[in-house]
């Protein structure tokens, strides 16, 4: 089968007026909910599913996919402007993006995010179209032991997210893993560390944790430093990227796209690793690594590209195996089955309109998001010029409603408050919240894969070294650990000798 012909067929399907219209609607809805803290794509798609019953399957799935990408784009906006990450991928965007905004480069950060996402989305779409079925074998070559080692590697390298002491940030990673333990144990169903609170049986809410430790704690800290706010108001640079910024961002985007495309294929949690995997890479290989932590454009460009590339390639397991990689995909499977279509390896032959139409619409959706988002940058930057005394009650109000609407339960608002206090305390102790959130997300996956690997190997630890993928991950992890700790120890020793 020739890809060009198939893609041409796909574009013919996707470019029909109705499909274009619904792709646009989906992208708009997605952007809107992505911007609002706490309101995610799963809830929105679940709400909109009944509307799709009356539509042809292709149109329905194109709209749902539009919401999914739109939410990714919108989430970066609040991360950059207000230090409010809506999901794990935008936690990384806050690190450099929010700093850029504080330096008066909010426009450039938003533009970088949109352009990097668009470029990565284009490349990843071509990958999905060209070699999706081929890449399935990559997804299937990862066993539980390999996933465990991948997660462990992810946790080790996430310590570099922090600016300060490596030991302290590893401590925060481990604390995040500990928080991730709260809830029902998957293997036995037993409740752990829930103190009999039914709301905790599914674990601590990510939204409450992220919103509290980042968004709300940041409000309190900003109010404490009136001088930082005036900087924000007066310094508004050009909305567009300077030549220098283009030059710095481009290689990062390329690397980020590669990282995201590969990790997105892995259904056992690869996509969650993509954005900060790219951030870690940029901090190690970029020419401007000394600028990280002060608003380096590379730290926005790479992760944003990786995140969007992973969002596209995570469709591969769905399209080729019929297995959803995340909750949004699971809903799409539901929508397809209701339409009488079984996603899976036979979909390419049985439903060529749908399959190639979806792939073409992935790209069209990315174009639309670019078109929607670029003109809005000016508006978003204006938002920052609103005096902070008027802005912070608004953020607080949106966060309160967002936290409540996650489960329609006040419990989530109270947990947000407690995590805000904790985040404030961590800031005073120079403990950074980003590694904690990574640990929180990866920890439960790591435990699951560890226990499954041990169950299948009958308790033989050698399984982690016998499998080549796992062994190489562990080797990289050990090297990274050594590279991080050695300078630190040396510094400590010098300090001890001189002091």
């Amino acid at each position, binding site marked *: 089968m020739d890809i060009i012909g198939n893609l041409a067929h796909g574009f013919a399907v996707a470019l029909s007026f109705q499909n274009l219209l619904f792709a646009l609607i989906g992208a708009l809805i997605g952007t809107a909910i992505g911007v609002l803290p706490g309101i995610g794509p799963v809830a929105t798609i679940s709400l909109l599913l009944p509307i799709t019953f009356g539509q042809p399957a292709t149109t329905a799935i194109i709209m749902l996919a539009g919401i999914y990408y739109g939410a990714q784009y919108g989430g970066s906006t609040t991360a950059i402007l207000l230090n409010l990450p809506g999901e794990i991928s935008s936690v990384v965007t806050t690190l450099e993006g929010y700093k850029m905004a504080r330096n008066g480069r909010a426009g450039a950060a938003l533009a970088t995010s949109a352009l990097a996402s668009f470029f990565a989305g284009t490349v990843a779409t071509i990958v999905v179209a060209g070699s999706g079925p081929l890449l399935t074998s990559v997804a299937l070559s990862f066993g539980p032991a390999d996933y465990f080692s991948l997660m462990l590697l992810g946790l080790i390298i996430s310590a570099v997210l922090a600016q300060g002491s490596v030991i302290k940030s590893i401590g925060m990673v481990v604390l995040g893993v500990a928080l991730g333990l709260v809830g029902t144990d998957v293997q036995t169903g037993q409740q752990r560390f829930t103190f009999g609170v039914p709301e905790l049986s599914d674990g601590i809410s990510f939204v409450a944790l992220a919103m509290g430790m980042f968004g709300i704690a940041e409000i309190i800290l900003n109010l404490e430093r009136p001088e930082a706010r005036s900087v924000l108001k007066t310094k508004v640079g050009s909305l567009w990227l300077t030549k220098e910024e283009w030059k710095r961002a481009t290689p990062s985007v390329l690397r980020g796209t590669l990282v995201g495309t590969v990790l997105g294929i892995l259904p056992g949690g690869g996509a969650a690793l993509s954005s900060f995997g790219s951030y870690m890479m940029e901090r190690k290989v970029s020419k401007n690594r000394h600028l990280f932590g002060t608003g380096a454009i590379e730290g926005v460009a790479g992760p944003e590209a990786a995140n969007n590339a992973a969002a596209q390639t995570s469709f591969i397991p769905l399209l080729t195996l019929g297995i959803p990689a995340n909750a949004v995909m699971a809903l799409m499977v539901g929508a397809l089955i209701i339409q009488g279509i079984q996603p899976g390896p036979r979909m390419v032959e049985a439903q060529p309109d749908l399959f190639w139409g979806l792939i073409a619409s992935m790209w069209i959706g990315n174009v639309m998001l670019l078109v929607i988002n670029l003109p809005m940058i000016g508006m978003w930057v204006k938002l920052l010029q609103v005096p902070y005394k008027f802005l912070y009650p*608004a953020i607080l109000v949106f966060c309160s409603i967002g936290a409540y609407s996650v489960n329609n339960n006040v419990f989530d608002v109270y947990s947000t408050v407690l995590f805000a206090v904790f985040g404030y305390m961590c800031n005073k102790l120079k403990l950074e919240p980003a590694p904690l959130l990574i640990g929180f997300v990866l920890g439960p996956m790591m435990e699951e894969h560890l226990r499954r690997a041990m169950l299948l190997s009958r308790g033989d630890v050698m399984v982690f070294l016998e499998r080549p993928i796992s062994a190489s991950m562990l080797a990289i992890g050990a090297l990274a650990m050594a590279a991080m700790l050695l300078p630190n120890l040396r510094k400590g020793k010098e300090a001890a000798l001189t002091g």
Partner: protein
Amino acid sequence: MKINAKDVASGALLILIAATGLWLNQDHNLGSARRMGPGYMPMLVFYVQLALGMIVLAMAFFNGPDPLEKWTKADATMLPVSIIAGTLAWYFAPVFGSFFENTYNALGLGMLVGFLVVCYSMGWRLLGFICAAMCIFSLLLEKGGLMLALAATIGISALAEPEHRARPLGVLGLTIFLLAMCWWIFIKQLDIRVAVWPLQY
């Protein structure tokens, strides 16, 4: 002295949480390496955290000085006072009516009282008002409706900013604007299921 007070506190915090975790984890079956029980992973995690906490603590004696921010006398006394006040309010909440018999409403009242009491000292004032604002939102939302809850949240959060205290009219304008905006976004567009006006249910 080269003591890093921030790292001492960080290390102590990590150790404290790890020790608590290990203590709570006694309830969980460890299982074997082959079929790990619910307690196996927590045990590993908390031991690693304990070790890291100790390293942070040990290194704190060499990589300072990095003192904590100064606490005034009021800061130091108001913290325990507010915790006691909050706990008392939480404990006696059911006395104030059946609404507070609900676990979370009682908890919310305790947190609100605690955060408001701590505002008495300058050092905690911003933290106190912002957190109290979110607590009053949750307390008022289900019975009082979204509009009342939002108005109260904006009102309390405005206390955190001296400029607002000087010009209450600006706060009123802000409140009206935000109420209208939230109504349009969350009620008109997103249809979230909450009461809008008092005593709607």
